[in-house]
């Protein structure tokens, strides 16, 4: 399922050098799960503080008073300071965000400044209303870059840190003989004409072929093959010997094939 929130699920950042790059915006679901982990960590910290200071209480009435006040202070510091400290020290990550490979960044693509970190965490109470980030999640869902209110004020976005790996063509059944390779100049034209989105779409279609009903699969590959035929025309003898699906497989192999070096 392609998750679509706000008006887009990636943030395109254009640098003054004229380079544009995309950052995948974290979904409210992933952010909610990360927040849950952070909540558990905060709870564990609070329990730890309570247990540690309960030993001080046995020393007398004065120390019991000091211990209770330190517990209150500890709870306050962990609940307010946890996000601030970790996001600052870990460059936009908390333990929950690290688990889900999320990171807070400046919405212009730069690292966070301390005021940004503090503001997005201090204004969290309004996002938490009325129960567990409901208000923040609603705002996140309707805002362009999935920002909760604290993010808006701080000028931050939460991205998903993808560490992309090359697809394993062998497991997709596209690593066999490819008749396109006998026409390198047409392959080059195909690569030139194909956009990254089209290439990704073709790869997705092959990966998910088994989830499609037969008639839908035939229609989809027919449409895709026709599209790629229009981008670069291979000789008739190549085209006629291939089914639509095999044609798309060959296209994917051509597009994703890496150097043997």
């Amino acid at each position, binding site marked *: 399922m392609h998750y679509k929130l706000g008006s887009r699920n990636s943030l395109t950042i254009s640098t003054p050098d004229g*380079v544009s790059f995309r950052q995948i915006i974290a979904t409210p679901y992933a952010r909610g799960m990360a927040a849950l982990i952070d909540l558990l960590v905060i709870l564990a910290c609070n329990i730890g503080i309570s247990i540690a200071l309960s030993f001080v209480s046995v020393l007398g009435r*004065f120390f019991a008073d000091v211990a209770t006040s330190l517990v209150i*202070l500890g709870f306050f510091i962990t609940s307010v300071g946890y996000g601030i400290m970790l996001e600052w020290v870990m460059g936009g990550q908390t333990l929950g965000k690290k688990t889900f490979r999320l990171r807070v*960044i400046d919405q212009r693509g730069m690292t966070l*400044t301390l005021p940004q970190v503090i503001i997005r965490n201090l204004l969290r109470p309004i996002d938490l209303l009325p129960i567990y980030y409901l208000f923040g999640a609603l705002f996140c869902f309707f805002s362009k870059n999935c920002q909760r209110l604290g993010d*808006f004020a701080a000028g931050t976005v939460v991205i998903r840190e993808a560490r992309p790996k090359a697809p394993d063509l062998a497991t997709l059944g596209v690593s066999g003989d490819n008749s396109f390779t006998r026409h390198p100049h047409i392959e080059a034209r195909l690569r030139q004409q194909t956009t990254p989105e089209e290439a990704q779409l073709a790869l997705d279609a092959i990966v998910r072929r088994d989830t499609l009903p037969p008639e839908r699969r035939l229609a989809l590959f027919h449409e895709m093959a026709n599209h790629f035929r229009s981008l670069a025309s291979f000789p008739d003898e190549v085209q006629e010997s291939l089914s639509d699906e095999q044609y798309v497989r060959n296209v994917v192999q051509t597009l994703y094939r*890496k*150097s043997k070096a």
Partner: protein
Amino acid sequence: MILDLDKFIAKEQPVWDELERIVEEKEEGKEKTAMPLERANRFLYLYQRASSDLVRLKTFAGEADTAFYLENLIARAYRQLHMRRKRENTFRPLSWFLVSLPCTFRRHGKAFALSTALFLFGALLGALVLGLDYDQKRNLIPEQFDHLYGDPSERVAKEEAAQFDNFDSRQTFSTYLMTHNTKVAIFTAASGFLWGILTMILLFYNGIIIGVVCFDYLQAGEGVFLTAWLLPHGSFELPAIFMGGQAGLMIGRAVIGWGSDLRMTERFRLIRNDLLTILGGAAVLLIWAGLVESFLSQYHKPDFYPWKIALGLFQLVLLFAFLGYGGKRTPSRAKERKEMLPALSSPSSQGHH
């Protein structure tokens, strides 16, 4: 035009690998000292080359995975290249408190005035309602303050007869007050996101409660007790809550965007540091107010009332003198700066040779 993608990737891969190594080192904080110039130049070169590769790849080839990989690498390198932390390490607490806080406070003085006015309006209305119908007292004071439901004179007599115990959970109480009131100030500020409406309601509602309590005690002839009880901590606590309201109204204004052509993101960027300064100032005031409320305000000995009231008044005057005049440049310093400004803005100093 990239005719051979395989060759292109094979040729550029070492560049990307080297860039990735530097980015990883920087991300992991391995470099404790500033990067040597030669290495910084190399980093910039690698970033620019990878950026150029991405542009070529996106323009001339449909290789999605490599483009995606490069986008991620460049995003990470861009973040590291535009690291803005070093500049922030010059934070000076004393200068922040003595100069930035009062200057920022005055810059948004209208928001503070509105915040205070809303609270006072609520207080007046609360007093008026209680004056017209005393039976409304229980409806106007929330249950958490049920010790205020009774007759004020009875409470005063009880409090004045009680023995003040310095060790009777005073530290716990003061810590509770500091943290609770700070949370209230933060929430009052955060609620400004709802176009400032919730901030206004919170200020108005809290004003009603205080108005009802004040009227109740004044009507019972316990004005001196009331002043000696509330003024020592209230002289800091209430302005701190109003500062929370001030921050909330600033947020509300940024959301609405009155009188500004800027986008909301930009409007927030302009007030971000000011919000932090005002909330930080409120937190400092609340720490002191918590200590005073716990260790002094609850000490109800009649012969000590004049001292408590005097302290409260002194704090109030000191606070507003500090917020109203603190951080202002001396005339000689201002003149010196004025003289420097034309020199700085003259064409010859801007490098147009």
